[in-house]
């Protein structure tokens, strides 16, 4: 029995797995010591929990437990990685490479560094959202100290060629950071074989709690050093001061262990439901475009543009379905998604887009209800769309002179 509303916004956040919550609970009321208390049982027990989590996360991404720095989430991890590298290595060079479809938590730290005098290259992407190795190579100069490129995109799910990029960075002696928030726990991530030096991840995107994340910091070959953002007790190898959030960290560790153990079945489950959703919609509606790469894509993500209807109106029509729209009609800017724009998707199609994120807890019946509701809402809106009418009359909408406002 399915209850409404249906949650299909797992790229925004995920439900905390009940097994994760179970794991966390004792650390609030029973094992509540400070992990930095070295002289009593309470502290030791807390430290044990933190160490276990470090191992669980290390196993998931192919890192040593010592290379995991706990943070409040990916935004902090990205800030620490990017600003930390920039400030630590500024004598070596002042050039950073990233791309246009990054999350704001990468773009905005880069913009701040630009104001401080750093040079940043924002690479364009192809129509699928991919950056090529050649593009990165030709953007590199002898002043380049950092490449920051997301593993998988949050809006369209496109997965970048990490192994090739890692190899290039190693050859050129450039530090490679990746915002892997959407990828970790969903698809195989291996910092060794992919040549990743810094990796940001977040608990709540992988069925863990909100408010906790981690930054992987390579310890050898090369040993990456970071200028810390906060001064304090020198926790986390001096890179992130602040008492460790033991219950959240225990939860993050458990979430990582579950993702690691169940990745094959999670992937199969999400991909099957995602493809069912995609096919169910496109078999009943014309002029629906996929945004993102057809195959190099996160298993649960599908971003679709519904020509001739506006995204926010569509969301109203499917209000029992929780998903996201590329239309920014609710914001004051009226600008559609910058990610879709970077793909070359026309603004009118960007306004007409919906992102569905299928997750571990979705079931087939929810997908079937969603298909029916989306088809009904799109038909309802197309019936009242002047653009659909014009398209049906054979008018090429790109040749129409619109009265811009």
């Amino acid at each position, binding site marked *: 029995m399915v209850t409404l509303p249906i949650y299909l916004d797992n790229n925004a956040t995920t439900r905390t797995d009940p097994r994760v919550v179970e794991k966390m609970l004792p650390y609030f009321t029973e094992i509540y010591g400070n992990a930095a208390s070295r002289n009593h049982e309470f502290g030791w027990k807390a430290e044990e929990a933190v160490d276990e989590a470090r191992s669980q996360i290390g196993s998931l991404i192919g890192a040593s437990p010592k290379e995991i720095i706990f943070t409040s989430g990916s935004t902090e991890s990205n800030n620490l990685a990017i600003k930390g590298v920039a400030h630590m290595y500024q004598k070596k060079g002042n050039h950073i490479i990233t791309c246009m479809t990054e999350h704001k938590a990468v773009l905005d730290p880069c913009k701040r560094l630009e104001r401080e005098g750093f040079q940043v290259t924002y690479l364009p992407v192809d129509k699928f959202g991919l950056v090529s190795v050649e593009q990165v190579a030709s953007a590199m100069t002898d002043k380049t100290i950092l490449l920051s490129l997301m593993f998988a995109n949050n809006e369209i799910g496109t997965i970048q060629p990490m192994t090739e990029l890692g190899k290039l960075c190693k050859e050129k002696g450039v530090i490679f950071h990746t915002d892997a928030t959407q990828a970790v726990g969903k698809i195989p991530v291996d910092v060794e074989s992919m040549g990743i030096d810094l990796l940001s991840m977040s608990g709540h995107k992988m069925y863990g709690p909100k408010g906790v994340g981690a930054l992987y910091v390579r310890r050898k070959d090369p040993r990456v050093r970071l200028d810390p953002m906060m001064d304090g007790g020198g926790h986390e190898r001096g890179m992130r001061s602040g008492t460790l959030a033991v219950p959240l960290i225990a939860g993050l560790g458990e979430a990582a262990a579950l993702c690691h153990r169940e990745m094959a079945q999670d992937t199969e489950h999400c991909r099957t439901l995602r493809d069912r959703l995609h096919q169910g919609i496109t078999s009943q509606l014309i002029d629906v475009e996929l945004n993102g790469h057809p195959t190099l894509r996160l298993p649960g993500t599908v971003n679709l543009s519904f020509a001739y209807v*506006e995204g926010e109106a569509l969301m109203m029509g499917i209000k029992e379905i929780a998903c996201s729209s590329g*239309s920014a009609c609710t914001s004051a800017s009226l600008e559609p998604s910058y990610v879709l724009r970077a793909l070359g998707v*026309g*603004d*009118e199609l960007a306004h007409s887009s919906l992102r569905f994120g299928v997750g571990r807890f979705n079931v087939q019946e929810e997908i079937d209800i969603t298909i029916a509701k989306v088809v009904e809402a799109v038909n309802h809106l197309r019936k*009242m*769309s002047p653009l659909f009418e014009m398209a049906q009359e054979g008018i090429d*909408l790109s040749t129409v002179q*619109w009265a811009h406002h």
Partner: protein
Amino acid sequence: MAYSDKVLDHYYNPRNIGSLDKSSAQVGTGVVGAPECGDVMKLQIRVSDEGVIEEAKFKTFGCGSAIASSSLATEWLKGKTVEQAGHIRNTEIVKELNLPPVKVHCSVLAEDAIKAALKDYQEKQTKLAPTASSEKGS
């Protein structure tokens, strides 16, 4: 974002969706907005010989507030004279639909669509004026 009940009602039960013959001299058509801005409104009126709007139709590509604004506009236009229709203001639409500040532009667009349809109708009438008066005279 929470929509007012009135916006929801117009969204689920839009009034006067459809199209009128845009080549008719009795019909005024206004198309405003642009797809890349996220809204396009087409509003049409059919005016009687006495100058009264007998029929009003709309089609809108846009958010729920844009749909509601144009749907409401067609309701208000019906039965009004061309002169009266020119006095409909976006602020009245905002008030009637309880539109929040970020949605005021939807009402502005509806007012623009009304004006564009009236202008189109009046231009057609002006062009026909000499013939129309001579016909009436005969």
